[in-house]
C-alpha cells in the first residue's frame, strides 16, 4: 500500500489512477491519447469501428466509447486527461462531461455552479 494513499478508498466518487490501473488500461488510454494527432482524429471520424479495432480495444471498451459513457470509461481505468482529448473530437465540452459524471443533465449541473456563464 502506498502510504500516500492511505484513506483514499474512503473518499467517494474518486478513482485512483495508479500504475496497475494504468497498465490494465494502457491500450484504451493510448487510443484516447492518439487524438492529439490530426490525422488520427480524421481517421477515427471516418471509421470509428475500424480505428477502435486496430487499437486492440475489447467489446466493453468499444461500447463505452460508442455511447460516450464517460463515467463508465473512468471506472475501467480511462485517465481523465486523455479522455478530454477524445471529448474534443466528439465536440463535447468538459462541462458537459462533468455533468454526465455526476449523473446530471447539463442544465442541472449548471444550476449548481456560481457563474454558469463562465464556459
Amino acid at each position, binding site marked *: 500500500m*502506498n*502510504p*500516500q*494513499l*492511505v*484513506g*483514499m478508498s474512503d*473518499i*467517494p*466518487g*474518486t*478513482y*485512483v*489512477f*495508479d*500504475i496497475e490501473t*494504468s497498465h490494465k488500461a*494502457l491500450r484504451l*488510454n*493510448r487510443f484516447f*491519447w492518439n*487524438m*492529439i*494527432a*490530426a490525422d488520427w*482524429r480524421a481517421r477515427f471520424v471516418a471509421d470509428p469501428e475500424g480505428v477502435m479495432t486496430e487499437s486492440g480495444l475489447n467489446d466493453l471498451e468499444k461500447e463505452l466509447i460508442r455511447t460516450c459513457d464517460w*463515467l463508465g470509461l*473512468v471506472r475501467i481505468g480511462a*485517465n*481523465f*486527461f*486523455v479522455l*478530454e*482529448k*477524445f*471529448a*474534443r*473530437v466528439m465536440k463535447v465540452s*468538459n*462541462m458537459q462531461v*462533468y455533468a454526465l*459524471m*455526476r*449523473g446530471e443533465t447539463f442544465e442541472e*449541473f449548471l444550476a*449548481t*455552479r*456560481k*457563474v*454558469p*456563464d*463562465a*464556459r
Partner: protein
Amino acid sequence: MAKIIGGIGTSHVPTIGVAYDKGRQNEPAWAPLFDGYKPVAAWLEAQKADVLVFFYNDHGTTFFFDMYPTFALGVGEHFPVADEGAGLQNLPPIRGDVKLQAHIAQSLVNDEFDLTVFQDKPIDHGVASPLPLLWPHQPDWPGTVVPIAINVLQYPLPTARRCYRLGQAVRRAIESYPEDLRVVVVGTGGLSHQIHGERTGFNNTEWDMKFLELLQNDPEQLTKMTHTDFVRLGGAESVEQIMWLAMRGALGGPIRKIHQNYYLATTTAMTVVLYEDGLESEVRV
C-alpha cells in the same frame, strides 16, 4: 549572477485558453478572472523578468503513460504549444534558453534530483493556459521559460515534501548561474477542484484560503500532508497543488503577498497569487 525576484501561483485551467482565444476577456463571466492577472502582468513588466521557471504538469500530451517521467526538464530554444485534440492554440512557440536550462539540469542532477531531460517536444496547457495572461506574446514573448514537468497524474506521485525540496534545489541552481538574469518561479494548478468520478464539481473555498495562508507562512505544514489529504480537502485533481510547493521551496525564507485573485466560477477555483521575498510588514505602497 541570476536571481529569483519573485514567485507566482496560478491555475492552468484549459478553459482560460479557450476564453482567451475567443477574446472573451471583457465579458462579465470572465472579466473577474482576466482582470485578476493584470497586476501580475504589470509587475512582471516593471520588474523586467527575463525568465519564468514553470513547475507545471503535462496532461498526458507530451508524455504518455508508456513512459511518464516523475520530474522532467525541457531543453530547447523553442517549444511549440501542443495540439490537445482541438487543433493548435494561436500562440507563438514558447521560448527557451538552452544554456540556462542545461545548467539547471546539471545542477539538479548533481544535487541528487535525477530528472528526465526532454527536447524538441510540444508543451500543453499546463504552461500555455496561464502564460499569455502573464506575458504579452505579440510579436513574441519577452523572455524565456524553463519548463519543469511534475507527475501529478499517475500514482505514485512525488510527495509534497519532495516537490518543496525540488524548489529549494532549483533556487540553488539559479543562484549558481553566472549570467545576470531576473528569474520568477511559477507554480501551477489548483486550487480546489475535482473533474472525474461522481465527486466531480467538488470545491472547498475554506481549505483554499487555509492552503494559501500555510503556503505563505508555514509551508512545512503542507509538506507533511499526504496525497490523500490533498484529495480529501480540495478534490482529486487539486493534488497538483504540490507544484505550488515547488515554487514556494524556490522562494526560500519569508515571503510577502503582493497580489491575490480568487475566482471560483464553475468547477475550478481559479487563482493567481504573486509573492516577493521579504516580510509582510515590508510591503511597499
